[in-house]
Every structure is written in C-alpha cells, then in structure tokens.
C-alpha cells in the first residue's frame, strides 16, 4: 500500500535501540494528549495517552512525557523492533472542542536491522 509517510520527518534507529519521537502542540489549553501509530494502508492505532495533570506515563515498552511549559510531548519506545516501523502522530484535545483531535506533523520511524 502507499505510504502515509511521504515528506515527513524521518527517524532511523537500529533494532534494539531506544527511540524518542518529539512533538510540539499548539494550544496551551489542551488537556488531553494521545500518541498514535499508523502503518501503511491502516488507520491510526492508539498507543498511549496522557492528561495534563501528569508529566509522565508508562505503558508496555512506551513512555510519554509531557512538558506543558514549552508545549512539548515525547514518545519513548524501548528496545525498538522492526514492527515499530510506522508513522507516529501526536494529537491534542482542547476543552470546549468536544472530541476534536488536532494532529501534529507525523514522524516516520524506520528500524534498521
């Protein structure tokens, strides 16, 4: 299938290394944030979320860090595997906007063997 990663920033890592994907969000009032993984030909897949009253949340092999001072999110993937290769998006939800998610510019993660 065609890639959704054309013209996107690319991060290349060796298998087994840790990956860090960064995201700047736009609205200081946003209070809920989600990271999604999108593989070619598929819809975005939920990875992990974090609310604004937290600055760190851990899942299985993934950690999300939130810095509200500089409006920055990061996704850390431990022991990156070939199956982690995909485009990663952060998304923010702003109060009063219902369930509207605003997506950031995606990052193409390529895992080299």
């Amino acid at each position: 299938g065609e890639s959704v990663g054309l013209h996107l920033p690319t991060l290349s890592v060796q298998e087994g290394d840790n990956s860090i994907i960064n995201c700047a969000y736009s609205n200081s009032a946003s209070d809920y944030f989600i990271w999604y993984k999108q593989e070619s030909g598929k819809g975005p897949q939920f990875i992990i979320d974090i609310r604004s009253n937290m600055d760190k949340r851990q899942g299985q092999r993934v950690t999300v860090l939130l810095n509200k001072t500089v409006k920055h999110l990061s996704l850390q993937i431990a022991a990156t595997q070939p199956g982690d290769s995909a485009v990663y998006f952060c998304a923010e939800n702003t109060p009063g906007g219902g369930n509207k998610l605003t997506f950031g510019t995606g990052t193409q993660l390529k895992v080299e063997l």
Partner: protein
Amino acid sequence: DAGVTQSPTHLIKTRGQHVTLRCSPISGHKSVSWYQQVLGQGPQFIFQYYEKEERGRGNFPDRFSARQFPNYSSELNVNALLLGDSALYLCASSLVDNQPQHFGDGTRLSIL
C-alpha cells in the same frame, strides 16, 4: 471484539458526483468522529456526533454532511465531489468525550 469498521474500503468517483461513507463504532461507543487524511499529512477533523447530535464541525464546506443513527453507526456524505476531496476518510469512536478515540482503517476515496 470488533473494532471500528468502515465501508467501502476503496471508492472511485468522478468530479461532481456524491458519495456516502459508512462507519460502525466499537460496541458501546456513543461518540463517532470523522477525519480526512490527505497523503503525507495528519488527519483533519471533519465532524463529531454524540447521541445522534452534531457536537463539533471542522473547517470543511457545506458539501460535507454527516449523521448518526440510533445504533450509533454513522454516515459521511460528500456532494459535488472535487479532485481535492481525494483522501483517506477515517472514522473514530470513543465511549464519551475526552476518552481515547479508536480509528477504523478508513475509506480510500479517489476522484477522477
């Protein structure tokens, strides 16, 4: 458990035609949102429906409309199709607002 399902998976239309895309949310999810994803970009919000009422609308022309049915499934309609409407149309569902939205694999719409 079944995830969000969308139909059709692919569709080819010509300029000026109209199209209806369908979405079935995860069982128990009352909120359905629609997004448009152009190649190389993140999804852009089109509509949100909750309990059959429109709760939000993105910056899209009136040619775009949607509705939600009593069983929480939803349709997205686009009239007078333009070449620029070619995109992946994604549906997402969540239990309520401000909860994780789970996406289907989308409908790939191509306009000739």
